[in-house]
């Protein structure tokens, strides 16, 4: 039973990271129409920044976060200015821009590889040792678990407020709904685009920093996180931020809680864990990307909440 709770905690922690990453990918896709595969490398760069600053230069771990966010935002802006924006202006299709993002990602990754190999930091971890803050029998909750879940939820709320309550947020939503109409109605799309790059770079910086504390990192860390994050985006219906967040948690639970149950009670090997991600992704695509389980789940949750309200 204790192990079951531990699996739930792991699911929430991993799910939070997937959800935050899925948020960044969805925002890019919805507002500026890019399947941004290079997003993985923004995460890796910020992970290396935090790991190097904290372990090699003894910078306080909390001070590493703003530097890592700044790095991810900078790379996000540079990639957009040098690659995505010129391609969009030339009238490239969404697939062409996606291929360009894959190439950009590979380029960045190999630069990270070279840097890491030369400096002997291929495998590195941020200098922070997480500690148990709650212990019930063998069930352990660490300060890092609480920090990851707390920070991701807080950041998602902040991003939600920016999108829903500010003028720039309204402009992003206008571009999201109809890019051409937004442009014709006088919205300075280039300015909004830059703001979107900042908004998607920020979660990348946070995830990278958190990941470098949570786990050892390598030049492929961001890449390894990309598949489940994209799966979450697909589950979320590609352009739904709440859907992507729910998708992230669904993936987290699938890989941890569900696999634990499957192994424990049906003897399913954990070697099949990656199949969870792929199956959820395929299922979402089969059902159709615009009526995906996340929306279905949302409506069930909404109905359940309404039902409870009526019962009272």
């Amino acid at each position, binding site marked *: 039973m204790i192990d079951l709770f531990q699996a739930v905690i792991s699911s929430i922690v991993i799910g939070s990271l997937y959800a935050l990453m899925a948020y960044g990918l969805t925002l890019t896709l919805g507002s500026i129409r890019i399947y941004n595969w290079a997003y993985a490398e923004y995460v890796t760069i910020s992970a290396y920044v935090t790991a190097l600053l904290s372990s090699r230069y003894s910078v306080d771990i909390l001070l590493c976060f703003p530097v890592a966010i700044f790095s991810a935002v900078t790379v996000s802006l540079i990639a957009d200015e040098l690659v995505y924006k010129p391609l969009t202006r030339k009238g490239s299709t969404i697939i062409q821009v996606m291929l360009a993002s894959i190439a950009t990602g590979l380029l960045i990754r190999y630069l990270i590889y070279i840097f890491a190999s030369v400096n002997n930091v*291929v*495998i590195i*971890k941020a200098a922070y*040792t997480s500690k148990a803050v709650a212990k019930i029998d*063998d069930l352990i909750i660490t300060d890092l678990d609480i920090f990851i879940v707390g920070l991701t939820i807080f950041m998602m709320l902040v991003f939600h407020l920016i999108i829903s309550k500010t003028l720039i947020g309204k402009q992003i939503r206008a571009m999201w709904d109809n890019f051409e109409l937004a442009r014709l109605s006088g919205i300075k799309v280039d300015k909004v685009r830059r703001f979107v790059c900042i908004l998607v770079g920020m979660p990348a910086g946070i995830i990278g920093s958190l990941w470098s504390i949570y786990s*050892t990192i*390598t030049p492929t860390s961001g890449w390894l996180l990309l598949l489940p994050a994209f799966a979450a985006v697909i589950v979320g219906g590609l352009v739904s931020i709440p859907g992507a967040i729910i998708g992230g948690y669904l993936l987290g639970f699938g890989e941890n809680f569900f696999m634990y149950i499957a192994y424990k009670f049906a003897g399913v090997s954990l070697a099949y*864990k990656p199949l969870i991600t792929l199956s959820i992704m395929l299922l979402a695509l089969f059902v159709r990307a615009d009526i995906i389980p996340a929306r279905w789940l949302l409506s069930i949750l909404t109905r359940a909440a309404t039902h409870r309200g009526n019962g009272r």
Partner: protein
Amino acid sequence: MSATSSRWKILAYLVIGLLIGIGVGYALSLVIVPAAPATVAVKEYTIGMIADLTGEGADYGIEVRDAGILTVEEINNFFADNKIPVRLKLEVEDSKTTVEGAVSAAQSLGGKGIKIIVGHLWSGQANGIKSYIDSHKIFTVSTSSTSPMLSIPNDYLFRMQAPDSIQGRVLANLIWKLGYSKVAVIYRNDPYGSGVYKYFDEEFKRLGGTIKSLAYTPDLPDYSSEVLQLSSMVKELGGAKTAVLIIAFNYEAIKMFDKARLDPTLSNVQWFSSESLKGPGILPPAGPPEVADFLVKVKLTGTYPASLTETELMKKFVEKFKTRYGREPKAYGAYTYDALWIVALCLSAAGSEDPDTIMKLFYNLASKYTGATGLTTLDVNGDRALQDYQIWEVKKLDGTYDFKVIGGWNGATNELIISSE
């Protein structure tokens, strides 16, 4: 007869006499004066090298490359000093710690006409390039592949290390000898991990032990559920005689150790490992100190294929490597050193780089060659036949973490010795 015609006659006799004289003189000069020695053309052979220079395995690959550069220099100096008209040149390709990278590197080297490859080539990579090197007749020596699945006779892949059928048995005997009759095993679900596990499982059960096992998928971002399951398995096995065996690559193992260190069950049993964790990257300064503390606490003990008595050649190689690169070779450098030397001697003897000739010579010569890693005798599959293993334990001495040798397995006598310290 006029006076003019008799003058011409005399002149003709003189010319003929002169020509005969020149001919006789030249013939005598060949007999009497020895010929100047002909300049023998020095033949240069290019040896392909495949190593993980980038990616998670770069720590190992860079060491293999550096050892390769050092060894080729040493060989060329030796040949030059002894007027042997053979020189080697190294052509290095990065396999990027992936199977696809290794295949692409092999194809690139094959495309350049290279007939001999010496490489890091862990089992997954060796398996990946096998069909290419066999079909293109490229004689290949791996310095680190150990999977029993690749023990195949009459192929073009030779291996400087013994297959894990031996290491699996050594691990089983080691764990059994240290008093553990139950083991929870977590292993990499690839030719390497499955290979070690298969032979460990057979031997440990033969000894009377109980095993619970868990295969994990390589290259996942997170291993929380695997560690949780491992903890659950240890609890199910229960009792003081339970240990954990991990067969993993260092970058995945660190992630697992980092989770396991907070688990009360997993941090109170002894852990064992195969040779893949003894290398750079696990312990500080490269690895996290909290993980190293955990490894000291759980007394991580493992095997490592190395001669029990350090050969003179090994001492010289280590010294040379340290002088050149400012660090000690930890993993596969010495195997690269031996592989390149045997290849060089084969090339010198054969006078050509015909892969079939070199392969036969390599097999025969290796069986009589005692290199830095000891006697390199090969079995019928082209794999090392006799293998000693060092037994190491992670210890912290004077504030420094290290893999301290605490015993060994004698490959000739199948005897396990553990230091009483």
